[in-house]
């Protein structure tokens, strides 16, 4: 077993090292090595999954001593349970397909071998993050995936924007990581040196984790601090600013790191450490998640850059997962992580395929690609249907559970109605902006013929991953049946393990009873509404949005078109919504990004400048050099006696001796 795990985990590292040092000398620059290495990892992960399906329970752990001082020992350990196996499969599947895809996408890049080395290194770190059983090692791999993300965002570093984005991503997430780290220290301190998950859970379950800080229970505080790390990595408000910028990296990277795996690490972490989050901390998570989901979705409505729309959509979906975890529907939240990984990776890779063909990311330049790139279109349609939450697609299963959990939570605690509001509005917006993207890219008439003319379907290495991922966007892969029972059964075994240590069992079953029906109905209505709306905006009346946004002429024209109800919607809902969107997107950029985040820059630079000056002028030149001046001026006076003539010195000495003699005699 250990051997299997090591092969699974270390193969990507080995390929990364080989490619880094020898990549340029290998045939085809060694891309086959990376793909094959990932293939091995994928096979092993799938074998674990098969075993899990057969046994319905899986638990394997192994520890080895790593750091031991007197009174302190930190071990390195692996923990494999159903949740780990699912993550392993998600990571290796997406990573394998992205590796395959990249062999075409990055063809001819001067740093081709290095790209694959980074990609494999990322996979290794991500697998490590999933496999470890202890907080410190979680943090270590947490940072290492951040490093891989930095390297890959800045892969085309000769573009200034790319290097800026890489730096911004690393630093923004590090702010969250600082909270994470303080949380770890707090737990380490309070538990008397425990870092392994199981030990901490036991400690908490025994109710030993007590104490208050400023009126907040320490455990809640620790939970919120840990969640700060997740907020950074999973791009939750207000630390989400880095993710849209991170789209400067190559598109397959965005698919792997910034859609499917690394950004989901925050969700994984919260799920894994669920026991540590008290109801208060969970509420915090729920609100942050719900708000992020809503907030990011509004921003996605207006962007015309195909990758940025997807990036905002990713933030929004991550917010969804967080909200699910916060309201107690952790199974739903985690399930959404899995389904989202497949369809969002598919969407990103489709957008990559489009970008590869058209050499632009601006959706206003595209349109009419459906006939040119049929495979890309159909796979993207499937993924879009899935993310919009249409029945028979995977997104429906997970989103439905999430919304039901949210609704049942709100039904129990009516004072938190806002959560449900955010969640359901986001569902509608998701459908809208995703279909808007699809329409603008493929369905609208071609706008820029120069761009469209030489567009063609991508080669098999790119379309195969698209087909596989879109296949995984069908619900049947996750449910085994259409009602979602299959996967939940797998979750069931994990659920029991969970219940042993959990403090506050989630109202999951209740959620099904009371809230499932209304939630499903509501979400379906909203999703369909969004799709119809986008259909209307971008296919039926393609001139509508621009006019609407530009002048009141648009309103007049729609009035002529007699769509009274639609126009009413536009007037009272969509137009303010659009305005709100632009306002929010603009404020997001101008206030949060430029003021709230970048605003620290002048403060820091000024302080550092000031302290630099202080150091130079007050301490160094005044205090230190001042003492030298005192010494040197007195020395200049005294040196006048020092003529360098020894004979004079002797004369002086004798003179002094005589004076002394006389003085002694007379006194």
């Amino acid at each position: 077993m250990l051997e299997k795990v090591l092969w699974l985990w270390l193969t990507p590292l080995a390929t990364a090292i080989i490619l880094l040092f020898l990549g340029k000398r290998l045939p085809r620059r060694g891309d086959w090595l990376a793909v094959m290495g990932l293939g091995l990892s994928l096979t092993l992960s799938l074998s674990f999954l098969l075993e899990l399906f057969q046994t319905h329970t899986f638990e394997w752990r192994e520890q080895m001593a790593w750091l031991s001082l007197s009174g302190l020992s930190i071990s390195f350990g692996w923990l494999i349970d159903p949740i780990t196996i699912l993550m392993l499969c998600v990571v290796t599947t997406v990573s394998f397909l992205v590796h395959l895809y990249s062999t075409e996408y990055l063809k001819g890049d001067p740093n081709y071998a290095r790209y694959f080395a980074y990609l494999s290194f990322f996979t290794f770190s991500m697998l490590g993050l999933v496999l470890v059983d202890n907080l410190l090692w979680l943090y270590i791999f947490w940072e290492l995936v951040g490093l891989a993300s930095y390297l890959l965002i800045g892969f085309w570093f000769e573009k200034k924007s790319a290097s800026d984005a890489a730096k911004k991503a690393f630093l923004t997430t590090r702010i969250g990581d600082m909270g994470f780290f303080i949380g770890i220290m707090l737990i380490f301190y309070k538990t008397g040196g425990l870092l392994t998950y199981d030990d901490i859970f036991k400690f908490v379950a025994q109710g030993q984790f007590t104490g208050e800080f400023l009126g907040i229970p320490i455990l809640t505080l620790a939970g919120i601090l840990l969640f700060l790390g997740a907020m950074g990595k999973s791009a939750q408000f207000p630390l989400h600013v880095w993710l849209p910028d991170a789209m400067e990296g190559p598109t397959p990277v965005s698919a792997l790191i910034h859609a499917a795996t690394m950004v989901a690490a925050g969700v994984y972490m919260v799920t894994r450490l669920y026991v540590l989050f008290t109801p208060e901390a969970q509420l915090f998570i729920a609100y942050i998640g719900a708000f992020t989901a809503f907030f990011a979705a509004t921003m996605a409505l207006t962007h015309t850059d195909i990758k940025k729309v997807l990036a905002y959509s990713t933030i929004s979906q991550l917010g969804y997962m967080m909200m699910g975890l916060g309201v107690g529907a952790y199974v739903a939240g985690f399930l959404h992580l899995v389904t989202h990984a497949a369809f969002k990776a598919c969407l990103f890779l489709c957008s990559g395929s489009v970008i590869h063909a058209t050499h632009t990311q601006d959706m206003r330049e595209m349109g009419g690609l459906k006939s040119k790139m049929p495979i890309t279109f159909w796979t993207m349609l499937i993924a879009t249907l899935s993310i919009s939450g249409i029945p028979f697609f995977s997104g429906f299963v997970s989103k439905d559970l999430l919304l039901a959990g949210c609704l049942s939570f709100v039904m129990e605690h009516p004072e938190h109605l806002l959560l449900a509001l955010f969640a359901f509005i986001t569902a509608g917006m998701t459908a809208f902006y995703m279909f808007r993207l699809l329409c603008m890219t493929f369905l609208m008439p071609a706008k820029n013929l120069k761009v469209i003319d030489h567009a063609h379907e991508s080669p098999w290495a790119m379309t195969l991953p698209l087909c596989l991922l879109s296949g995984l966007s069908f619900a049947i892969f996750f449910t085994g049946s259409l009602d979602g029972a299959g996967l939940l059964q797998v979750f069931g075994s994990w659920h029991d393990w969970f219940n042993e240590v959990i403090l506050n069992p989630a109202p999951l079953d209740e959620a099904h009873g009371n809230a499932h029906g209304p939630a499903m109905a509501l979400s379906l209505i909203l999703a369909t509404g969004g799709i119809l709306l986008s259909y209307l905006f971008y296919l039926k009346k393609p001139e509508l949005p621009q006019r609407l946004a530009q002048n009141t002429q648009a309103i007049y024209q729609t009035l002529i078109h007699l769509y009274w109800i639609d126009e009413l919607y536009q007037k009272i809902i969509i137009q303010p919504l659009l305005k709100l969107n632009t306002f929010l997107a603009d404020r997001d950029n101008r206030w949060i990004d430029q003021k709230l985040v970048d605003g620290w820059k002048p403060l820091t630079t000024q302080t550092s400048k000031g302290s630099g000056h202080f150091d130079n002028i007050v301490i160094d030149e005044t205090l230190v050099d001042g003492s030298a001046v005192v010494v040197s001026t007195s020395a200049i006076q005294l040196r006048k006696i020092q003529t360098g003539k020894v004979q004079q010195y002797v004369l002086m000495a004798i003179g002094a001796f005589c004076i002394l003699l006389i003085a002694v005699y007379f006194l």
Partner: protein
Amino acid sequence: MLYEHLLSFMIFTPVVGMLIVALLPSSQKNWVRWSSLLFTFLPLCLSGILFLNFDQALADMQFVEKTSWIPTFNIHYAVGVDGLSITLILLTTLLSFLCVIASWGIEAGLKGYFSMFLLLEAGMLGIFCAFDFFLFYIFWELMLLPMYFLIGIWGGPRKEYAAIKFFLYTLFGSVLMLVVMLAFYFYSDPHTFDLIELSKAGILKFNALDIFGISLSAEQFAKLLFIFLFIGFAIKVPIFPFHTWLPLAHVEAPTPISVILAGILLKMGAYGLLRISYPILPHETYWFSDALAVLGLVNIIYGALCAMAQITLPEAKGGNDLKKLIAYSSISHMGYVLLGMSVFTVEGIHGAVFQMFNHGTTTAMLFLLVGVIYDRVHHRKIDGFGGLGNVVPIYTAFVSLAFFASLGLPGLSSFISEILVFLGSFKVYPSLTIVATLGIILNAAFFLWALQKIFLGPLNPTYKSLKDISARELLTLAPLAILVIVLGVYPMPALDLMKSSLDHLLTLFQAL
């Protein structure tokens, strides 16, 4: 014979080398280089033997040689190693060897340079081995002299100023140390300079006394002595506000000497505190520990801010110098050492000593790397490059590794020591530690910013045909890079060495 006198052989081999180098004809430059290499390689081998035969389970001094030297004043030639000093000895021999390789390109005054360098190595090794205060003091001064010449003769444009500043700063500290040394001698019964004897309870008895009309109780006198000793060592660490010699000396010194300065000399201050102040004046150290922690915090934040100012300040205002950035970052990193030392927890003190070692390897790499680029383009302006990443990929990889190691990336050695320091200090000063973690972000910010300015972005066409690092430069960097990675993944080889001695040291503070 070899095992009994291993330490003496190690300390004095460079002295023999110095004499031989001085006697070689100055026209035979390669002879001078190769013999210097040999006489730094021999101590490296001897320290290797030392490492292999070192008993990790013992807390006391090993390989002890103690012979009477000046019997009238009970002064001994006493050398030995324990867990505290062995890592630093290994670091010293390794860095000295690598620095000789890095000095290969020096042409002017070669003979003088290498003989001074060998004398410097002897002085440094002597400091880490001596456990007689008098001998310690002698070596402390012995090390000062060649350093003065190495900066003052082979340095940059303001070398004289820098050398004198360095010399005076350190001398000021040594004078205070001398006072303390004499006080220890006269107030111990029987009079002794032996640090081991002095640390035993009941040997040292202070009386109340009057100095300059101020009457001090015995406790106050001991505290005064601690402060004297502290200032002496604080200058070497350096601790704010005694740090201004450091950026200047680093900037002006030639590359290999910057490496020695940052890699080893900075450690002497912290080593001195742990070797002398901690065991001999435990009560006073404990009394002072709050201040030590605050100073550590100030070092971390202040150093990082000043380092960042190097990017924002224009050259005319004394900024924009890569070497200065690294020098300030050293101040920040030594802050972690202080913070770890100040808390008397297992994690803290191991983190501090391990951080000393790791800072030695990472800053050595950083300075060697700055030297590499300086040799090629003859400037160190952070703004003066741009987009070098694709021109010199191997160099970029090494710089990135060193930068990421310095900013405490997991998987690299500094991370382990920083995390140990933080875990240890959080137990005692939680809020202070939380503020100190800001240092992590600030460090990341300026290192990444500098990395971007130099290597990323559009290529500066001036450096289109810059040469990547040569085999010789690779030879100096690779061992350090390997150490940084290996100890980052598995730190126990280093921690095992220091464990017993540091646990023993901590027992002194458990009752307090």
